[in-house]
């Protein structure tokens, strides 16, 4: 009997990029909600719905004493007896850090799933990059690419990944400053305590995080039976179950319990948590993350519960 799961080759960036762009084309532009004003001077493309530095007209308001006379819009003021000042909309870019776990365990693909977890993670990451770049946000990848605000940010990220594949484990986040958004894509199979130990400091630094957990269906439903020897792809550890079907129930409970615990902890930080299975469409996860990033008015109020 052929084995259910296997370790597949790393997916090439070009192929992933193509698929990501196809996915991204289906998703509308994403304007990242900025809860706090980032003290950045880097101009973005999209208005922030508030007064500030920008190029587009925002409002006329009466001139108040002390303001620079040069800001008076004389054409408007000539219409009546008041003087008006033309305000412009603040147009600034937000920094989004994208990160995907590319550890060996992500290379797992079972007969139940369509692609490997790594492939799905990359697709999600690049599609997000594409969508956000379209919106003029600054895209970065910790340890791989400094934040850039460019229309071709996805291509540049793909190229960067080709040259410098990210390390296993959660990224070094020392270079991340201020209020930015962090999108973490991985399988998060470590104990949830260990994960939270890493993430809690980030939350304290004011970062907003979005965690996408990629799981293979085989990991979730445990379709194994009979005498089975299990191998951990990261540590190489082996474990033999005499009759795998009798532990299936217990395993499923433990697996879902871990997911529940992780999700609850993340929501406690105010972060969002999106579980995703590789036998589902990538767009599902993409839309979910898109909603969280853009503030998803209806959902944010409920702590991101689906």
């Amino acid at each position, binding site marked *: 009997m052929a084995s259910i799961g296997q370790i597949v080759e790393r997916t090439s960036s070009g192929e992933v990029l193509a698929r990501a762009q196809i996915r991204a084309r289906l998703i509308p532009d994403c304007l990242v909600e900025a809860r706090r004003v980032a003290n950045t001077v880097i101009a973005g493309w999209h208005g922030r719905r508030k007064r500030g530095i920008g190029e587009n007209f925002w409002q006329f308001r009466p001139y108040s004493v002390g303001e620079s006379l040069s800001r008076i819009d004389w054409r408007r003021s000539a219409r009546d007896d008041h003087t008006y000042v033309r305000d412009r909309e603040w147009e600034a870019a937000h920094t989004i850090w994208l990160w995907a776990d590319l550890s060996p365990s992500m290379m797992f693909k079972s007969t139940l799933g369509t692609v490997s977890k790594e492939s799905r993670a990359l697709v999600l990451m690049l599609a997000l990059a594409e969508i956000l770049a379209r919106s003029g946000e600054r895209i970065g990848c910790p340890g791989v690419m400094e934040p850039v605000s460019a229309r071709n940010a996805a291509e540049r990220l793909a190229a960067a990944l080709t040259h410098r594949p990210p390390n296993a484990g959660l990224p070094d986040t020392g270079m991340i400053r201020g209020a930015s958004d962090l999108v973490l894509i991985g399988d998060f199979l470590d104990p949830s305590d260990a994960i939270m130990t890493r993430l809690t400091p980030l939350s304290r630094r004011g970062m907003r995080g979005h965690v996408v957990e990629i799981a293979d269906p085989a990991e979730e439903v445990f379709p194994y039976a*009979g*005498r089975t020897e299990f191998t951990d792809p990261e540590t190489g550890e082996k474990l033999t179950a005499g009759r795998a079907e009798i532990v299936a129930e217990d395993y499923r409970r433990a697996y879902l319990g871990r997911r529940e615990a992780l999700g609850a902890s993340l929501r406690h930080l105010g972060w969002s948590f999106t579980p995703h299975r590789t036998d589902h469409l990538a767009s599902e996860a993409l839309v979910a993350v898109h909603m969280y990033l853009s503030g998803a008015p209806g959902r944010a109020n409920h702590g991101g519960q689906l």
Partner: protein
Amino acid sequence: MSGLPFLFTNPALLAALVALPAIWWLLRMTPPRPQAEVFPPLRILARVLKREETPSKSPWWLTLLRMLMAALVILAISDPVMNPRLNTLATGGPLVLVVDNGWASAEDWERRVETAAGLIADAASRDLPVSIAFTADRDHNAAPTSADEADRRLAAARPQPLATDHPATVAAIRAALGDTRPGTVAFVSDGIEGAGDPVMADLAALGPADLRLIGADAARPVALSAASNDANGLAVTATRLVTTGPESLGVTAYDARGRAIGEGQFDFAPGESVARATVTAPFELRNDFARLGLTGLANAGATYLLDDGFRRRRVALLSGEARDMAQPLLSPLYYINRALAPYADLVAPEEPDLAKAVPALLEQKPSVLIMADIGRLPEEVYGPLQSWIDNGGTLIRFAGPRLAAAPAEDPLVPVILRQGERALGGALSWAEPQPLADYPANSPFAGMPRPADILVKRQVLAQPTADLAERTWASLADGTPLVTTRVEGQGRIVLFHVSAEATWSNLPISGSFVEMLRRTVQLARGGGVAASGAEAARTLPPYRLLNADGVLTGETGGARPLEIAAGVTPKATSDNPPGLYGSEDGFSALNLMERDAVLQPLALTGLPTAYQTAPLAGAETWSLKPALLTAAMLLLILDGLVVLFMGGAFARLRASARPAARAATILAVAVLGTGLVVAPGIGHADDSKPGDDAILQHLDTTHLAYVVTGEAEVDRISQRGLEGLTQFLTYRTTLEPGAPVGVDISKDELSFYPIIYWPVSASAPMPSAQSVSRIDAYMRAGGTVLFDTRDQISALGSASGDSPNTQRLQAILANLDIPPLEPVPTDHVLTKSFYLLTSFPGRYSGSPLWIESQLDRQDGAADRPARSADGVSPIMITGNDMAGAWAIDDAGNPLLPTVPADENQREYAYRSGVNIMMYMLTGNYKADQVHIPALLERLGQ
């Protein structure tokens, strides 16, 4: 047969056992290899998987199991054989081969032939002549021949349904050998020795170089030796040869078409060679038994043939009087019952009315009808009874007081009887009680010893005729016949000239009575050839013969007719093989085993020369291959189950079984619930019938009853008379009867009344024959009729002697079976039952009261105050017009004057009525009361 009793046919293949360690290593390496799976969330799995301990190798016992399986297969392929045959014949002389081909060898005849053929082949290879003899054959040709010829004779030999004849065989061998000393004497035996037949010693006396006893313990012969038809079932006896250990065998009864219709079971106790079994079946079914066979044994000894003689007869019993069962020893039927119950099926009538009882009995098609002391039968019964006898029925009659009083022209007695009986012994007789004479030779009782202790005190006598002697089956020492017979058509009438209870003679309480009745009943068969018991000898042709396999066949080739001589039990011989002899209409069975024969094993001690024993050929060389392969296959199945279990195949089964169990529980609860709901609905059937109220009313209190004659005045006097007696009884005694009841004897139920008063009136219509028959039944069932002709005064004046009322009474009594009568003797209990009376007057005082005569008058006991008598007289006759004296009007004044007009006489008339009523209700109680002083004296009071 020396050497190893164990041989490998292909010993080279045993080399494969060397490969076992390699198989061991392979089994250790290969077993259940796990399915390899990459599994990233291993740490989560590890948390839940810690509990299970999974061996990485197959357990040692599983490996051992498979090793054992491999070893068994290798051993099986190399084909081990137990007890291979070797040629060890002595070469000094001819081979003498004695082969038992009696009935016991039929089961394993093929193996016996194989054994003998092996010996003949051995002899052929050593060029020895062979002398072969078969012990059950008709002629024993033991001349030494070539091995080929012996082989041919062996192939032609068949087992016979007969016992073996060893002495003749040995004699034939000795004659054939002459002076030659035999080399090997081999006796292929069935292990049975005939009586006085030391066959091994005889064979040893031939002086062989080598004596072998082959197969003596191969068969465990069991034979059926006897069968008898008992009351509860067919009792069968079986005997076996090997007595060690307990043994259970079924016996099956087959009907004439070979269908099994009954079963029994033999349980041999250890050490016992004889066991008995009972085949329980209804009587009708048992008569269909034609053959008994031991289950699973097909030979002539295990088959027992039954013939007509085994059939149980149905015997119908009729008695003239119906004594209550509180005094069974006085009832004639009691002795007949006890005598015949083991041999026949007895039927008794359900109602006392002979006019109905006899046809009802004949309806049941009895072989024999026994009538004890019946003097006169209802007129309409004679016809059917006569035709039943003509068609082969046997009527057995016993004498008694009624028969003695019956008219002489009775057609249903074998001889002409003198009226009355003859008493032997006693004060007024010169004659002594007589013993029996020897039974005549033409009697079926011939052969029985003459019973010396039987004394006949009273008998009915036959008129001497010319053919009386040849009709007599038994007679007394003085020559008067005791048992006579007459053939009527195909049937027979037998008369015992004594009564069937012990008052006339002590025959009924002797063993001869049982045997005589049994033989008489045995004669009653449906027209078979053996029906005539008087012939001295007869010859029966073979009809169906038993072959060695216990099957009845029509081949009667070599069999001769069976000669049956009186007193000689025929034996099965080669001239008369066991089977059925006779014709289709009737046949006698000749069985292989003599009655109660016992199988004897061969006597093996004290032989002059040593001998060897050997088993039969087919039994000894048997291959272990099938057993080994079966064991290996079982291990393979076991291994498969273990592997399935370890692979987790049964976990799912258990999970899916749970809903089924729940469904079963629900179903059981539903069924139980339904049962509880339905159960209370079952009620008691209402068995009340119309008229129950009136019956209960009559049963609550005793009523006096009178016969409604149809004449108003007579009936009124009867009613008023009984009313007067009722009042008198109520005043003077503890008996308080209800109102008198007039009964219509043609239709009313009579059994409620102890006594019925019948005023005979010549002008009233004559009662019908059916009514008289009912009265007869009433008297037979214990009731009493008081006939009152009321003609004492008128009879005085009539010249002819009999008044019209008396003539009418005679007409009525002509159809009744009444005992002899006498006037009430002075010591009769009627004179003492309440008042002390000397006469029984009514309106008139001249007529005596007639009651049943007491025949066993104790003449020597005249000083007794009362006669002991049993029962109550069923009939009383008076002419004194008792009801007329008793009759009162509503005010209590007498209706009619007494003649002469004497109130004292009326008082005595009432007293007579009281005494009669007390006699009716208490019977002979008062007669026993007179003994009280003597009894108290004996008790020391």
